[in-house]
């Protein structure tokens, strides 16, 4: 049987081959199995795309047309009732723009085996959440007489996260150079090593409120949820790199909706897949149906240069070689002016230029041509 499947490897796409394997009844004669494979192969051949098929436009149509049916309602609850996520058209635009600042960055953190069983899940979640000094301090004050800043730490809050006061000292002294940090019970004092004015001290007091103490930076909200038979943590705010460094985190399954972070941490291929997944999530959430191939094409287009290019005039469109194609999109004057300086040549390879000149476009039935020898 395996030999049979081997024979059809390369002839039938692997995903289909796997599906055949799963669906074949247990007691099937090799003859019938081969007949099935042969049929699948034939149907694959029949379903092949024609050369010249304008797949790009079809993808754009499929996504664009469905886009008109999406809701604009920005916020919705995705999976969990407690967290707001951008969905629908605004999210789709966000992804396809290739934006670096998302309106709702999010991570789904999967945990390593002993931790994902739900024991101490709240504590783990809290340790992942970013804690700033202001979150655990109950009071900031300036002692004018001695020119020191006094911070009163709320021990209850510290305990909940699982930190002791010593853990504060280190990041704090790192953040404020030229100052001496001392801990005494639940009071932390900061004293200048040089003579500083009161004004400086006041600035320092404001600055240290934002000092990162523990957890993953930029994660400002955490929510443990049960998924299947394990617990995962959904976070608001995303920082994939720091999450992967965390000992609790299962880095093979943890994901983010921030595509640029995926690119930075895992590379383009992962980013491409992330785009597909994120677009698919939006489509599915809206109850629409678009084939994955169209999203794949868009994602491939965005990632083909090795970096993420948005579908904007600065991104994918700027990669075009044709002057007229760029000019027909946005800022036509700019493109024509700079083309004139270089004496750029438009070879008329793509669609719009030929439409402009009333010529057959080089896609679909406009693709084939004849070559004859002239005597």
């Amino acid at each position, binding site marked *: 049987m395996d030999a049979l499947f081997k024979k059809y490897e390369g002839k039938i796409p692997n995903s289909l081959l796997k599906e*055949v394997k799963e669906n074949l009844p247990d007691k099937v004669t090799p003859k019938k199995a081969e007949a099935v494979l042969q049929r699948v192969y034939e149907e694959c051949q029949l379903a092949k795309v024609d050369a010249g098929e304008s797949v*790009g436009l079809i993808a754009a149509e499929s996504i664009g047309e469905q886009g*008109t049916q999406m809701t604009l309602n920005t916020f919705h609850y995705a999976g969990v009732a407690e967290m707001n996520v951008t969905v629908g058209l605004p999210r789709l635009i966000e992804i396809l723009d290739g934006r670096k600042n998302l309106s709702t960055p999010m991570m789904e953190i999967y945990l390593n085996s002993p931790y994902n069983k739900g024991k101490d899940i709240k504590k783990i979640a809290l340790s992942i959440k970013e804690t700033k000094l202001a979150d655990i301090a109950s009071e900031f004050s300036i002692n004018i007489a001695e020119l020191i800043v006094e911070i009163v730490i709320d021990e209850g809050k510290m305990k909940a996260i699982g930190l002791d006061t010593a853990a504060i000292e280190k990041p704090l002294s790192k953040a404020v150079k030229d100052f001496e940090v001392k801990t005494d019970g639940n009071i932390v004092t900061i004293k200048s090593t040089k003579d500083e004015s009161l004004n400086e001290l006041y600035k320092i007091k404001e600055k240290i409120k934002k000092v990162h103490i523990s957890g993953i930076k930029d994660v400002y909200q955490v929510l443990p949820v049960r998924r299947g038979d394990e617990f995962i943590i959904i976070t608001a705010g995303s920082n994939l790199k720091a999450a992967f460094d965390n000992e609790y985190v299962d880095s093979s399954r943890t994901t983010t909706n921030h595509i640029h972070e995926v690119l930075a941490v895992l590379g383009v291929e992962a980013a491409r897949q992330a785009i597909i997944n994120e677009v698919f999530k939006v489509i599915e959430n809206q109850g629409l149906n678009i084939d994955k191939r169209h999203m794949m094409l868009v994602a491939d287009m965005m990632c083909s240069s090795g970096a993420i290019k948005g579908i904007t005039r600065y991104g994918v469109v700027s990669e075009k070689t044709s002057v007229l194609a760029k000019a027909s999109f946005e800022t036509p004057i700019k493109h024509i002016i700079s083309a004139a300086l270089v004496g750029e040549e438009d070879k008329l390879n793509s669609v719009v230029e030929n439409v402009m000149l009333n010529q057959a476009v080089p896609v679909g039935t406009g693709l084939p041509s004849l070559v004859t020898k002239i005597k």
Partner: protein
Amino acid sequence: MPEEFESQYVYKKVKSIVFGVLSPKMIKKMASAKVVTPELYDKEGYPVDGGLMDTRLGVIDPGLKCRTCGSKLKECIGHFGYIEIARPVIHIKYVNLIQVILKATCRECGKVMVPKSKVDKYLSTIETIKKENGCDKMRAYIKSVVIKDLVAQTKCPHCKSRQHKIAIEKPTTFLENDKRLSPIEIRTRLEKVSDDILPLFSMNTEFVRPEWLVLTVLPIPPVTMRPSITLESGERSEDDLTHKLGDIVRINQRLFENINAGAPEIIIEDLWDLLQYHVTTFFDNDVAQLPPARHRSGQPLKTITERIKSKEGRIRHNLAGKRTNFSARTVISPDPMISLNEVGVPKIVAMKLTVPERLTEWNMEYLKKFVERGPKDYPGANYVVRPDGRKKRITDEMKEQILEELQPGYCVERHLMDGDIAIFNRQPSLHKMSMMCHEIRVLPAKTFRLNPAVCAPYNADFDGDEMNLHIPQTEEARAEAEVLMKVETQLISSGFGLSVIGCIQDGISGNYILSELVKLPRRTAIDLLLRVGVEDLSRLPKKDIIEGNEIFSMLLPADFDFVGKDKSGTPFVIKKGMLISGALDTANLGKGSGIMLRDLHKKYDAKVTAEFITNAMRLGIYTVMQHGFTTSVEDTDLPHDAQAKIIEILDGAYKKVEEFIDHFHKKILETFPGKTMAETLELRIMEVLNKARNETGEIVDKYSTKATGTIIMSRSGSRGKPLNLAQMAGCVGQQAMRGGRIRSGYKDRTMSCFKQGDLSPAARGFIRNSFKGGLTPSEFFFMGMTGRDSLMDTALRTPKSGYLYRRLANALQDLKVEYDETVRDASKKIVQFQYGDDGIDVSKSENGTINIKRIVAEITGK
């Protein structure tokens, strides 16, 4: 090749377009007239020699002849002229480049501000980048690396002179150490820049010299490009460009005169600045810091830049999108009796639009009859085209003469007839299914008729929608339209691989009635089928009373097998072309989900499927007509115990909500993690109320057992959902805005009839009444709120999604599958090695894949 056909063939094709900058020499060389006077016409109204409307620049008046090419109006395409500018002016579009060049080159020796070795290094890098990555990458490199370096230098390495600070005082004044640089000085400096370093500024020596960017001569566009219009009063109204050019020429003349007369420098400078302003606004009338030139009425002039850019500009309006002849537009109305593939065309339209037919020996007699009938008798002909391309209108007087003249090679433009090919379109054309090819059926009355089943892909309804019809004029176009665009070829969506066309409305209701409710006497059944158009009745069971699904089965191919599920989840089985179990509803007859239609398409072909849909629609409609179908208020009546139950459920929910609110006020409500108590309360209340509404829905569903029109529609899925029925009979439910209950309005309350801080369901947009029962005034207002909200949503969404679509289409339009199965863009860069990783066309797949289960079942017989 016969001589008379030759005029049709394309001999030349544009292979490429090169962009460049016009040199002063070139401007003079291509000009056919020098413009010297701002006057346009003399006393008699003739164009003045040397004026802006000079007949050497082309003609726009009938009767005049162009003095350059000798041709008349519409034949002469126009010719450029030029004017000599008294003092040079700067071209507004190149101001930044000029600044960069001035900064990067030495003011004394004109050399670049870096040593020769560095220049050579830059030049070679630029060259390789240009060759390997194209002009855009080169420009980016120059901008980010080269220019930055060059501009940063302060001392010339060649002659050791110091560089001064060059600043621009917007828009066109250059300052060197706060002293004004005149365009003459700038031009002399630019002249000093040698050819070999131009690539450093992304300039190509073959096409540009930097000094050309400071204008000394200005080309005057041909008159044909700026035609004047004659108003009703006989007055002439000139084009905006002519106005602007008039300003330029006038000031230029004044400047010349003043220079020659030796006027004081101040006056000359003022005029010079004015000239600069006019030339600048001639190119672009929307420059920052420059007041736009205006008409006397105060409306800004549309000059060259405004003509080109934006949606209404030349590129997007006239070049990327064009207007067409041989098209018609009118209101649409439904006609289920015509086929899916047809479009009903009113006779008046059919008599205006024509199809050209080439006259040969063999169709001579046939076509002569059309000419004989002329334009007023249907089916006649409107025009005859002679082999030399001259078109002749057929009139009663000319008819005899034309008939005698006709011979092979002539072309007769005859009226539309049944079976002609047309392309039918409804805007917005978001889909390829928004333009499909139909066969023409000439029908009486004045609307286009289409089968209601094709409404879905066009997204059309009949509340006054209009659609467009185009008649392809060549054999190639017709063949291509028929093979690629016909409705039956578009049944399967290329977006998700399922049917986009299915039965709708009565087409489904009727079939549902047939499968669930009726048995018909044999005679009636045969009558029904014959009306639908089924003539082969051999498969009809030989019984006196025939079941509804047996009647339906006559539409199916005799060897069709299918197993699926209907809307309610019961098995839907077809064996040997006979419907054995299951109801005929949207799940199998409708679009999208209709796996049965997809299967039919796969096993047979598009034609069979299209015919099936057409027939099923007809059968449904005739059944509805025969059986009778209505919907009334009575349909939503509920028995007393059901009403009591609904009241009980709602009261229970209200009580629960009250409890929550009470807990909230006492601050003992358990909060959700990460939420405040108020937020938790909202979530809790929403949950309870939604549950209550759903329960009322279930009760309505349970008690509505009679097969009334409303219930048939919601059960079969032909119109309306169970929810709509529940809202009519039971309870409308919570009005939600932005994912929560309504909270905006007055301070701490939604309307002035409620107490401040009232959190009860009724005060926050819960509508407990049913539509039939009637809404209270406050409930009515809440509905109005959400109604307005959704209206706003639609209005805001359309432009947003439209822009996204435009960007997507522009970015992806030239991706295509090559012969080697790779997907590449216009410059042959590979985007995918195989389309979608498996090379399968979505429109040929079944919901995106090959249906393995079906194949296995077919072959193993399980």
